[in-house]
């Protein structure tokens, strides 16, 4: 099956068929694609489940559409079927937490040497998070 690239927190390549702007995969491969698993109680990751009222709406025949699953998780997606690329939003809930509850959302980003860092590393210290750019 041809590969499709899904860009979210990270970049993942999965087996999928593209039909127009539908990206169809076996439900069993959802954890690889989006990090969530489809269970009878909904879409689950670790101990957290997001209920899905009618799971059949995620399916096209016997496979799930990645964009519909992302939407069920409250994450909009952009699909470029021709380029076989999907870009999935981060959970809006995290941003709203930042804006309303003023809880700093965590992130995982590499430094210039490629070592990954998370915000939690600096817990217990006052921090200035500075976003800058060369442009």
């Amino acid at each position, binding site marked *: 099956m041809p590969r499709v690239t899904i*860009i979210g927190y990270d970049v993942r390549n999965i087996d999928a068929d593209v039909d127009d702007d539908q990206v169809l995969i076996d439900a069993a491969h959802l954890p690889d694609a989006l990090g969530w698993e489809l269970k009878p109680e909904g879409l689950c990751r670790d101990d957290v489940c997001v209920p899905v009222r009618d799971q059949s709406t995620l399916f096209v025949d016997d496979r799930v559409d990645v964009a519909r699953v992302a939407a069920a998780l409250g994450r909009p997606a952009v699909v470029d079927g021709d380029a076989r690329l999907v870009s999935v939003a981060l959970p*809006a809930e995290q941003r709203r937490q*930042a804006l309303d509850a003023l809880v700093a959302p965590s*992130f995982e980003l590499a430094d210039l040497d490629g070592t990954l860092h998370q915000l939690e590393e*600096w817990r217990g210290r006052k*921090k*200035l998070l500075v*976003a*800058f*750019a060369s442009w």
Partner: protein
Amino acid sequence: MIAVALDDSADDVRPWTEGITMPVLIDPHHVLTELYAISNVPTVVWIDEHDNIVRPNGVAFSNDMFAEFTGVESGPHLDLIRSWVRDGELPISTDDAREAVGDLDDDEVLARLHFRLAAHARREGDDSTARRHFERAAELAPHDFTIRRALLPLTGGDPFGQEFFDFYTEWQEAGSPYHGLPGTPPPE
């Protein structure tokens, strides 16, 4: 201090980080702009010991190189930081902090998705896909520097050239929309 570069690669950033000892992270997918609702840089978020945001995104500079252009001096914000670090004094109430940034709207989120897709396609050498999605991103978030200005170096443009100044004028004519606190004025 944690610096996060909204740049495509470590090589883009290295010229600015020589001799710097603080952590410098690189965010080619602009994850931070989506998580914190950031629409321009430089912006500074104050985060306390418990990972609570005590002063949300705000315009701030470490020196006065661009003060004439931006109208924002570095000194007043640096003074506020000193008071916070030394005395725990906060320059903004929790209620005001909640109001300061404003959530991204649906189009601004979609613009970030198109930008991310374009940046990936470009890295893979698929320039026509990249261009298409950079253009769509710019249409969806026409006043967002992290889209409009950031895409210039990725599409053969000049982020300090005429295209940027045209965009800047367009942005000012739209009322200078911005997610975050304005620059700190000098005390009266």
